[in-house]
């Protein structure tokens, strides 16, 4: 009997792996397998969505062996076919290397990156071909819809309400309450909207879901339409997400073919259909009222939300808008029931959250963990700790609307309420890890720079406030800061937070306020000492060699890209500050840590 029966090879074709040539790996497998006469029953090849550990891509999984290979190149395919497919042996060098234990692991399920995870929203990604609705249905897809169509709309809403699901886009508003309020308004037509305008730099959770499992979002939206009495839905997808747009379009077509969308869905008498609206390259369109304005054909300017969108939203009609990840959670809640969902997570913060763990962490990628997992667990157990084992400095959550979390809060549980309590916010799930080579003043400046162009520009406080804060922060990073600037920064930040019209403006000062709170000493050092200890603000950085530590090994001068270091073997080396371009290579290469960072060069 051919042991290849029921065998599957899954090649990750999420954007991250694609950029690393995974599609050619997929093609090479197909080629090798079709040519090979020895293999009678060919394993089924699938190209899947993101597996999460993008750092180590391309990722190839072999089932039912439960073998996962990482960083697979086209040249490795031959060996994998010979050893694994034909002889059921592992190619050890391609197995996951667990940095914490120092061992190679066969099945990725054992890997510390994956062990702490619990996949609900991401349950299918990496296991199915997103273009195949049959794959989705094989794993239970559209069962929730069938069940829902047999339920009463109020019961569906009740189920979602009792589950305690809160919006995964950042605000954490109770989803069930939103649906209930909307269902109570009788104005027609009603609309269901998916916010796929993921704009936080460093966040790619929604992209992965839209690319890797678009049907879970579609199913969630149809169920909501039925529950609140809406017959039309829109998926607003960010313009830059080509693959997501392609896969969602295909999934909608597939769903229509199967009768899950369109008229009289599954003979229930319920009509519902979906349309994709492409974003235009505007971060502010992630704000719900701006998003709706954009769908209507206007510029993406938010409105004051004294009247909620559930009452008057798209075209002034009752609208439920939810984030991609929120929609992805609906089918499992309907199938498994609210009690199951509520058993995961912490009090008031139920279920899981998908995080994109990026920055200076060893295992960068996408993870889904129960709410309440601590930051330490996320960064160290799952993330494997900081690259080169450098000291942890802070984590930025919530993107430009969020705040930084310093070392002292490493044990904070990751959930809506805990993060809010310390002045940060969960946001959409981007977690950017920073070490001692990150300058927190520069981080604040970076976000203000981002927001300066992304703000819609409608209200005075956001537009002028951000512009002024950017001006002040730029001054500080260039060595032109004065001590009064700190007070001024804080004053403006607080007004922007209180007086701005929409969420973007109101939360824009968060990076500034949190860095000021936890890293005030860095600000002071930049202003008073004119020095950037992380070596990021070039004007405030000068490198010099500590003559007491230098052993004259010449490693620094050999690696200097501009030949700015002079010194003979075994003699103390010297950096020519005029030639130095402050790249920091010498500091990294020095085996004795003899290269130090001084402040702004003072004219003699």
């Amino acid at each position, binding site marked *: 009997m051919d042991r290849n029966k029921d065998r599957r090879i899954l090649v990750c074709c999420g*954007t*991250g792996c*694609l*950029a*690393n040539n995974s599609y050619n790996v997929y093609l090479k497998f197909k080629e090798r397998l079709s040519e090979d006469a020895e293999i009678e029953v060919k394993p089924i090849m699938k190209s899947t969505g993101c597996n999460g550990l*993008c*750092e180590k*891509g391309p990722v190839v999984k072999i089932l039912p062996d439960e073998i996962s290979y990482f960083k697979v190149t086209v040249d490795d395919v031959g060996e994998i076919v010979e050893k694994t497919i034909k002889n059921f042996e592992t190619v050890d060098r391609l197995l996951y290397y667990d940095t914490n234990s120092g061992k190679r692991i066969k099945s990725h399920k054992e890997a510390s990156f994956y062990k702490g995870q619990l996949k609900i929203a991401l349950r299918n990604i990496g296991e199915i071909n997103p273009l195949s609705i049959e794959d989705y249905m094989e794993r239970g897809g559209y069962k929730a819809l069938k069940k829902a169509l047999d339920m009463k709309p109020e019961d569906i809403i009740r189920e979602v309400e009792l589950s305690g699901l809160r919006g995964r886009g950042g605000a954490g508003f109770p989803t069930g309450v939103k649906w209930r309020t909307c269902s109570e308004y009788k104005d027609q037509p009603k609309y269901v909207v998916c916010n796929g305008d*993921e*704009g*936080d*730099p*460093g*966040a*790619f959770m929604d*992209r992965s879901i839209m690319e890797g499992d678009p049907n879970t979002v579609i199913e969630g939206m149809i169920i909501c339409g039925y529950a609140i009495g809406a017959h039309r839905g829109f998926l607003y997808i960010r*313009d*830059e*997400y*080509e693959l997501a747009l392609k896969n969602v379009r295909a999934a909608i077509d597939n769903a229509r073919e199967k009768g899950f969308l369109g008229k009289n869905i599954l003979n229930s008498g319920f009509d519902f259909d979906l349309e994709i*609206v*492409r*974003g*235009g*390259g*505007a*971060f502010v369109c992630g704000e719900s009222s701006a998003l709706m304005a*954009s*769908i*209507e*054909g*206007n*510029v*993406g300017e938010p409105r004051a939300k004294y009247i909620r969108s559930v009452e008057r939203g798209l075209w002034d009609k009752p609208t439920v808008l939810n984030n991609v990840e929120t929609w992805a959670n609906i089918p499992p809640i309907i199938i498994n029931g609210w009690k199951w969902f509520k058993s995961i997570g912490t009090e008031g913060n139920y279920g899981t959250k998908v995080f*994109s763990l*990026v*920055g*200076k962490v060893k295992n*960068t*990628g996408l993870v889904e963990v129960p709410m309440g997992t601590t930051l330490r667990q996320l960064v160290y157990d799952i993330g494997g700790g900081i690259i080169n084992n450098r000291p942890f400095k802070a984590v*930025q959550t919530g*993107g430009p609307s969020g705040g930084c979390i310093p070392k002292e809060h490493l044990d904070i549980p990751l959930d809506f309420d805990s993060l809010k309590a310390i002045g940060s916010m969960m946001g959409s799930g*981007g977690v*950017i890890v*920073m070490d001692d080579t*990150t300058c927190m003043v520069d981080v604040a400046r*970076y976000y203000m720079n*981002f927001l300066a162009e*992304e703000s*819609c520009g409608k209200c005075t406080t956001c537009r002028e406030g951000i512009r002024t804060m950017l001006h002040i922060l730029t001054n500080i990073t260039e060595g032109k800061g004065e001590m009064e600037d700190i007070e001024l920064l804080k004053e403006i930040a607080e007004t922007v937070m209180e007086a701005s019209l929409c969420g973007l403006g109101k939360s824009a000062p968060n990076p500034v306020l949190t860095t000021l709170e936890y890293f005030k000493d860095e600000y002071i050092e930049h202003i008073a000492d004119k020095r950037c200890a992380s070596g990021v603000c070039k004007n405030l950085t000068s490198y010099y060699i500590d003559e007491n530590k230098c052993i004259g090994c010449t490693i620094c001068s050999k690696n200097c890209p501009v030949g700015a270091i002079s010194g003979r073997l075994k003699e103390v080396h010297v950096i020519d500050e005029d030639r130095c371009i402050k*790249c920091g290579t010498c500091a990294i290469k020095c085996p004795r840590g003899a290269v130090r960072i001084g402040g702004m060069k003072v004219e003699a």
Partner: protein
Amino acid sequence: MSFVYEEIIHGYPKEKRYTLAILQDIQKRNGFIPREAMEYLSQYLGLPVSNIYSIATFYKALSLKPKGKHIIKVCSGTACHIRGSGTIKEELLELLGIKPGETSEDGLFSVEVVNCLGACALAPVVVIDDKYYGNMTKDKVKSVIDQYKEERAHG
């Protein structure tokens, strides 16, 4: 050239909500939105030109100026920023002698600094047309640009 945009515009119903979609199709086909296209669209949809112009200048996916043969997008997302995208950007701009948003003199390259592309694990990322270049370094910049220049030289 004019036929291209008329065709695109007529492919849509005369409803305001398709403004952005139409403009994006024109942008994709043409590389930018010509003034005549905007004026034609204004007539077609029955909307003031100033309205269309507002939309065209608000959304960064749309451009009113022609672009180079190859569009280089430098990701300025946080993950890329921390991993040194600033240096990559400076190197690129210096090499081509232009500022962000501009096109090189030989019309070969346009450089845009864009928001997070979502490929954060490969930071810093540069995208040229549809090709992703991950883990970019200062040295790689020159070799990649040279590759494209060579292609153009060999037709």
